[in-house]
């Protein structure tokens, strides 16, 4: 337990602490201490010290468990618990913390799992001892705060065990609760790097512990405090940046960082498309204006005829070659509606999905008229809780409406109407 607690009072390098925990095996079935021993024994060894001692320890415990008939029953139903506990793969300290302390069988289960003990003899045969790890490259990552550099800690990694057999993996994958094994050798190397990297892993670990403010590190005391100041500062800074990024992106994203980054990526792509589209439009407009001026200086009669033809940018070889096909696509989402606008040349396709509350078709149609879009095709209706519509339109000649304008206005109108409408019970008819 000591290891998973934030107390950090356990110093893996201190002999005395370890010795306290090793002493248990003769005792009657006390799952907590068992768990402790299993965990501590893994901590107990420096990465240099690797296989022998740890393996011996592990085996000792395993044998202990095997011999102890009273525990086999308990262990038999540990298996399902294992998966449950271990499914907190990326959980915080606290979550993981609470899990083992919830009840002793589960605690034992968690311990056993991390210790890599397989409850039943049948399963034992599947696994190669001592490489009995449910978490071959187990990444139980502890993060005190979202910003901290996560230490991926593999309880058994320092044993330098060979990669687990495929059978093992398949078995794991067939387990309920969908616990996933992040397995392969590359990962192992990565994890190892972190952990083995000249004490850095350990230092980071202890540093994180100290983040919780309960540092009892002796010689690292001064160093820890210094790290504390800059480390925390850095984290806060980074978090602020993520928040800033989030505010710049228009669509509502979840709070987690991955979504923020994903949203930012999509938004940047969208902005690039919009800029390109606008450039093309501006060029076309400029060409059109130039041509218009040129036409006016020509003969009036011929200008009237050429008025239809000449104004088409592609029709006149003497003018600017604006053959680039204007295309654009963007989406806007809000809480109750979703808009997707695609433009190719002068055809605009609009998809609208809106939670059914008001009759949005009228407002949308009005807006389309405003935007000078000629309706060619409309399809849609009521699907469950939502209205869903598809509009195929063409841009009237001379109008230079662009995608983001359409999308923004549309979602604006829809949302406003939605907000304005009184909350009525649906299907009142």
């Amino acid at each position, binding site marked *: 337990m000591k290891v998973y607690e934030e107390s950090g009072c356990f110093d893996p390098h201190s002999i005395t602490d370890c010795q306290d925990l090793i002493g248990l095996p003769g005792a009657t079935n006390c799952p907590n201490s068992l768990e402790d021993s299993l965990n501590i024994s893994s901590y107990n060894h420096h990465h240099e010290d690797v296989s022998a001692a740890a393996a011996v320890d592990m085996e000792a415990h395993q044998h202990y468990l095997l011999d102890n008939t009273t525990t086999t029953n308990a262990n038999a139903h540990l298996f399902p618990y294992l998966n449950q506990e271990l499914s907190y793969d990326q959980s915080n300290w606290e979550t993981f913390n609470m899990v083992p302390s919830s009840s002793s069988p589960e605690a034992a289960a968690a311990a056993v799992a991390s210790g890599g003990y397989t409850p039943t003899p049948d399963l034992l045969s599947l696994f190669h001892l001592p490489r009995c790890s449910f978490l071959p490259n187990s990444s139980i990552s502890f993060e005190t705060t979202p910003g901290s550099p996560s230490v991926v800690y593999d309880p058994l990694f320092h044993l330098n065990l060979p990669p687990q057999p495929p059978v093992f993996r398949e078995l794991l994958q067939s387990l309920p609760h969908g616990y996933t094994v992040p397995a392969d050798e590359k990962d192992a190397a990565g994890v190892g790097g972190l952990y083995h990297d000249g004490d850095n892993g350990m230092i980071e670990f202890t540093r994180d512990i100290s983040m919780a403010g309960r540092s009892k590190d002796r010689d690292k005391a001064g160093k820890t405090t210094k790290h504390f100041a800059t480390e925390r500062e850095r984290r806060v800074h980074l978090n602020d940046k993520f928040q800033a990024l989030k505010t710049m992106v228009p669509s509502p994203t979840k709070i987690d960082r991955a979504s923020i980054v994903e949203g930012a990526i999509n938004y940047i792509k969208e902005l690039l498309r919009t800029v390109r589209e606008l450039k093309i439009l501006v060029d076309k407009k400029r060409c059109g204006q130039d041509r218009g001026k040129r036409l006016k200086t020509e003969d009036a009669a011929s200008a009237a005829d050429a008025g239809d033809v000449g104004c088409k940018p592609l029709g006149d070889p003497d003018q600017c070659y604006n053959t680039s096909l204007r295309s654009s696509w963007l989406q806007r989402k809000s809480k109750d509606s979703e808009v997707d606008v695609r433009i190719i040349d002068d055809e605009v396709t609009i998809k609208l999905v809106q939670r059914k509350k008001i009759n949005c078709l009228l407002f949308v149609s009005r807006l389309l008229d405003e935007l000078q879009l000629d309706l060619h095709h409309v399809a849609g209706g009521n699907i469950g809780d939502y209205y869903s519509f598809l509009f195929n339109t063409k841009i009237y*000649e001379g109008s230079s409406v662009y995608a*983001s*304008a359409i999308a923004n206005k549309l979602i604006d109108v829809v949302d406003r109407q939605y907000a304005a409408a009184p909350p009525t019970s649906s299907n009142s008819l």
Partner: protein
Amino acid sequence: MNKATIIDDAITYIRELQKTSEDLSEELHEMEASSEDGGKQMETGADAADEMRECGIKEEVKVTNIDGNKLLIKIVMEKKRGCFTKLIEAMNFLGFEFGETNVTTFKGSMLLSSCLLGKFVDTLMVEQTEELFIEMIRSMKGSSECANNGSL
């Protein structure tokens, strides 16, 4: 390139792109304001009616009562700018809710078929609705553009 700098760069880049797109759209608006729009829309209006006549598409309004409060509507009319909006307004005014709606345009004509949910539908209602739509189409036929004046 660590995380912090990547995020910083992203923020800067987004700002830059936003500014560029704003500038461009402003420029576009200015150009639009200063340029003249040709009278092309007028021509297309007249063309539409001709095309329709050529193809033999007749104007039509059909309103049927199906399944209790539902109305099935089929309207074929000359396509004008804003006519769809007018039709929708009318239906809203009558208190109908839209079920499935489909609009197709072809050769200057427009076909609207829609399933409407009404609050209180009987045969009289059906007839009235039909007459109303016929009236609307006739009034729209004359004008070259359906202004959104809300009159029915």
